[in-house]
């Protein structure tokens, strides 16, 4: 059997999806029911013909060609692969029958010899005896797995850009983010972003469902590293250490200066005390933040910038910045400086603490997004807009899209939705998007599930409104203790620093016990009860944006008292304050949208 036929035996549906996409593969299966593809082997290539279509399969399969106008892997190529596989199966059956009878002969002969010698092979089936003898004679070939383990880190490092590599090292949980299955290929599935890489040998034969890139892309690099990590060949610390701090990666002269100057300023702030902080302090911190950016230290840059804003706010006596908040941030920054200093002096591990630019957007595979909520916001840093929350059917995860505009220059009151663009050229409004179903291809998202409005993405508006998919039922909590366990687990994984998406939950309470408005603290406080009699406190601070929601909660409670209405499912954020779990509601999802759940 030719090499290409041998390879086609290992190709499964997921591999084909990686080559093209799910839609093409489905169509290919369907069309094959009514069409016969004529398959001819020509050396290392396979020719497939039907009607006026001619396909030439070559290795790697991405270099296969078709007479149709398509420039990428079309359905004709997929159909030819499937047809060739069928032919290969038939050939194998024929060969197998021939081999079996030959093996049978051998076994009878060897058994006769063995019996004569009082051999140890008594009782073994004839085929197995012959097979094991044959195995001893063949030279031992390296397995796919072992070849992947031998790929040097340097080669993988070169295949990724600096940003991609740093993103991999600092934002990947090598234990939890991947599911690996071994077979003829090694299938690595990223559970966070839901892409799949099928690893094969040579490595160019591997496929990637995220970018379909035939080269060694960042997803394939991540998949290989995940395999190497699983087998103990690499560790995250070892990877960071092996990535040598050089002139190309970091400016090794300016970093110690930046760290020393930052430490000096922070020490001075602590020594003089918050009551005597110089009015020049915010500017000094901002300057250091810029220097940290230049030295490629994103974590430090962000921390110094936030601290600068906090000191300004503290000087301006803003109620939401206290001395305790300031102290916490200074100490956090101090701790990071200590880790960076140690990494620089030891000459290793700096990447672990330098961080990656967290807003880094990465490719995600095709997403099926269902809008469930929209929230208006107005931030203290001078931005306002809307955030749409989506439930992604494949990964059961939440994604967000934020349309924001700066308000700092707005003098007149805004009218309408000017400045709040609908992403991906979708033919709907933002309001419609929050209850729409969208298929997004070639999209990008960051580690916190925020979707980019990149023009490279292609979106299809499937419908507006209607029922949510059954899958959402799997993540609705009607037991608050279970919800709490899930929160703790996420908190543990994130080492205490949960992203906004990780705090999101869907709750189906049995009852809404009370809704009261606290005039002093200017917030609405309510209690939900679950089916086990447990209670969860909810709070909604008063603002112009939340006024409608507060009224809505009050009306809902009134109707519940009169037993007029079934409660909806609540969507919102969970956080902990003063030893209590608090729920911040973003939206309610009417039961009619969840009628199957």
């Amino acid at each position, binding site marked *: 059997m030719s090499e290409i036929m041998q390879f086609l035996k290992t190709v499964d549906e997921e591999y084909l999806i990686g080559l093209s996409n799910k839609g093409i593969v489905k169509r290919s299966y369907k069309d094959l029911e009514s069409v016969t593809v004529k398959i001819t082997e020509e050396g290392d290539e396979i020719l497939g013909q039907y009607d006026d279509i001619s396909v030439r399969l070559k290795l790697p399969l991405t270099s296969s060609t078709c007479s149709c106008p398509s420039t990428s892997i079309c359905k004709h190529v997929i159909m030819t692969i499937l047809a060739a596989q069928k032919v290969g199966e038939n050939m194998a059956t024929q060969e197998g029958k021939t081999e079996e009878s030959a093996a049978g002969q051998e076994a009878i002969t060897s058994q006769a010899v063995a019996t004569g010698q009082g051999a140890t092979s008594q009782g073994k089936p004839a085929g197995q005896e012959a097979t094991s003898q044959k195995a001893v004679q063949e030279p031992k070939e390296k397995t796919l797995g072992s070849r992947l383990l031998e790929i040097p880190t340097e080669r993988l490092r070169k295949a990724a850009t600096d940003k991609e590599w740093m993103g991999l090292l600092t934002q990947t949980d090598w234990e939890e983010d991947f599911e690996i299955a071994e077979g003829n290929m090694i299938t690595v599935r990223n559970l966070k972003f839901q892409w799949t890489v099928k690893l094969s040998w040579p490595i160019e034969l591997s496929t990637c469902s995220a970018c379909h890139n035939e080269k060694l892309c960042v997803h394939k690099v991540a998949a290989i590293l995940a395999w190497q990590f699983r087998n103990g060949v690499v560790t995250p610390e070892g990877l960071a250490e092996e990535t040598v701090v050089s002139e190309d990666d970091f400016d090794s002269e300016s970093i110690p200066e930046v760290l020393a100057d930052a430490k000096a300023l922070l*020490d001075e702030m*602590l*020594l*003089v*005390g*918050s*009551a*005597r902080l110089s009015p020049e302090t915010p500017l000094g911190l901002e300057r250091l933040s810029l220097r940290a950016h230049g030295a490629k230290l994103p974590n430090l840059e962000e921390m110094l910038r936030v601290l600068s804003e906090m000191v300004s706010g503290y000087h301006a006596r803003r109620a939401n910045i*206290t*001395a*305790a908040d*300031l*102290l*916490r941030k200074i*100490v956090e920054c*101090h*701790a990071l400086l200590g880790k960076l200093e140690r990494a620089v002096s030891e000459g290793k591990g700096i990447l672990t603490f330098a961080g990656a630019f967290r807003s880094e957007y990465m490719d995600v595979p095709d997403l099926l997004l269902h809008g469930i909520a929209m929230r208006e916001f107005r931030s203290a840093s001078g931005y306002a807009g809307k955030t749409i929350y989506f439930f992604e059917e494949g990964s059961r995860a939440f994604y967000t899209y934020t349309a924001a505009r700066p308000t700092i220059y707005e003098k007149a009151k805004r009218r309408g939705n000017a400045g709040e663009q609908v992403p991906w050229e979708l033919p709907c409004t933002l309001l419609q998007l929050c209850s729409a179903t969208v298929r997004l291809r070639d999209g990008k998202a960051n580690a916190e599930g925020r979707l980019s409005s990149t023009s490279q993405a292609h979106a299809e508006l499937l419908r507006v409104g209607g029922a949510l998919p059954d899958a959402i039922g799997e993540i609705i909590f009607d037991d*608050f*203790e279970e919800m*709490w366990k899930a929160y*703790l687990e996420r*908190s543990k994984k994130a080492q*205490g620093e949960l992203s906004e998406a990780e705090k999101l939950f869907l709750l189906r309470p049995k009852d809404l*016990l*009370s809704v009261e408005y606290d005039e002093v603290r200017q917030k609405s*406080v309510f*209690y939900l009860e679950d089916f*086990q*009699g*447990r*209670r*969860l*406190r909810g709070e909604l601070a008063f603002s112009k944006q939340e006024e409608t929601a507060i009224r809505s909660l009050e009306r809902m409670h009134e109707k519940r008292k009169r037993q007029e209405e079934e409660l909806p499912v609540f969507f919102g954020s969970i956080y*902990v*304050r*003063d*030893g*209590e*779990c608090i729920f911040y509601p973003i939206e309610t999802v009417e039961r009619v949208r969840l009628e199957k759940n």
Partner: protein
Amino acid sequence: MKEQKIREELMQCRELMTDVFQSGLTGLPESLKDRCRREETFVRQYGMEWLADRIEELTELLEKQRHLIGGENAEEVVGLFCRIITYLEEGIRLSGLEEAGIRISQREWEQE
């Protein structure tokens, strides 16, 4: 609830350290010195020996600072102070999570 008491004690200690921060780490006013001594005792009663020892150490260092012109101990004081704050923040966070977990498991409790 034991967890609540521990968290409240840690928060009280954090409040004290915030007042120390407001005053600055170049010395320790008498009023703050007395509070530090008292806090050290309370914290020891709760079994938090490490924290109590660090508060004692900080109090002594800040006392020394008052009499030093050049601030020779500055780095040591700042380092110790940061370790105490880190301990307090993490302690408050973890005890808060424990307390919240206990509350949510309860079936009968009064609304605030």
